[in-house]
């Protein structure tokens, strides 16, 4: 009898669930455009202190990255397995390259504080 497939049955492909429509995609694109404009605008505002500017840039980069990934690449609506595969690559890259380049002494850089912190975090924890 093959009616019970134990605790791990095969799964038929799911039917497509509700997609965002074109209107929603255009909205996302508008947000992306606005964020880009803010980024570039901030570049020209000399009054912003460097560390704050760098942080803002990273935040905005993360926002744009996430918008494209979650909506355009459909990760928000798809199986979590895809997100895990992708995010694993990102996190591994961040970790591994941060450690490597912190040992190569990124002195006098606007990332210096960040790497220094990461270095202390990694080394201190051990």
């Amino acid at each position: 009898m093959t009616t019970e497939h134990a605790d791990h049955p095969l799964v038929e492909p799911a039917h497509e669930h509700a997609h965002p429509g074109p209107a929603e995609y255009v909205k996302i694109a508008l947000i992306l455009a606005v964020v880009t404009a803010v980024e570039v605008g901030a570049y020209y505002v000399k009054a912003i202190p460097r560390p704050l500017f760098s942080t803002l840039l990273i935040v905005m980069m993360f926002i744009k990255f996430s918008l494209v990934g979650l909506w355009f690449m459909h990760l928000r609506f798809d199986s979590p397995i895809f997100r895990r595969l992708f995010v694993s690559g990102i996190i591994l890259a961040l970790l591994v390259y941060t450690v490597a380049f912190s040992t190569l002494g990124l002195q006098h850089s606007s990332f210096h504080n960040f790497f220094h912190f990461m270095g202390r975090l990694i080394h201190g924890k051990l």
Partner: protein
Amino acid sequence: MTTEAIAVEEHGAHATSTGLDNRKLAMWAFLGSECLLFGALISGYLLYRSKGVGIKPHNVYDIPYTSVSSFVLLMSSLTMVLALAAIQRNEERKMRIWLTATALLGMTFIGGQVYEFTSFVHEGLSLSANPASSAFFLLTGFHGTHVTLGIIMLLSLVGLSLAGKIGPKHALYVELIGLYWHFVDIVWVVIFTVVYLMPVPKH
């Protein structure tokens, strides 16, 4: 031409262990791998951006120009997802229009890069001028190659569609090429921020 059973035809949905299509799973695995590739290139640039003698990339950036380029690529992600939405609603003609638009925006981006880099070289920033320029061109060269391959795939899709070989059953292929295209766009989002906009300390 009849809709012949060629590779682009969906070849029968299998029941799988996860319910997900093999090809989509493979594409996401590949994109995870690409994060390591571009991570190496971007970190390499960050390490080398001030190294060596002579003019450096951040000395010659034209931020307004590159902003427009970046905007163009960002919008191409919109047209790409609209192309997918179109084929999912069985609107093949609309899909072709949006795919072509995506390819055109991509070509505009590449054209912009070519012009930008030619002017950099004229200012003395060649591939081998110093490690900073090498790292810059290696990174942007890899990215540009990825975009170009994407454009070829997009135009191939348009061609196949004109030959009647892309129907709503083949939406997956549009989706997969879309995922690749969005990824390449995301990488540029990172490059634009980290390479062009991030302030470089003077020492």
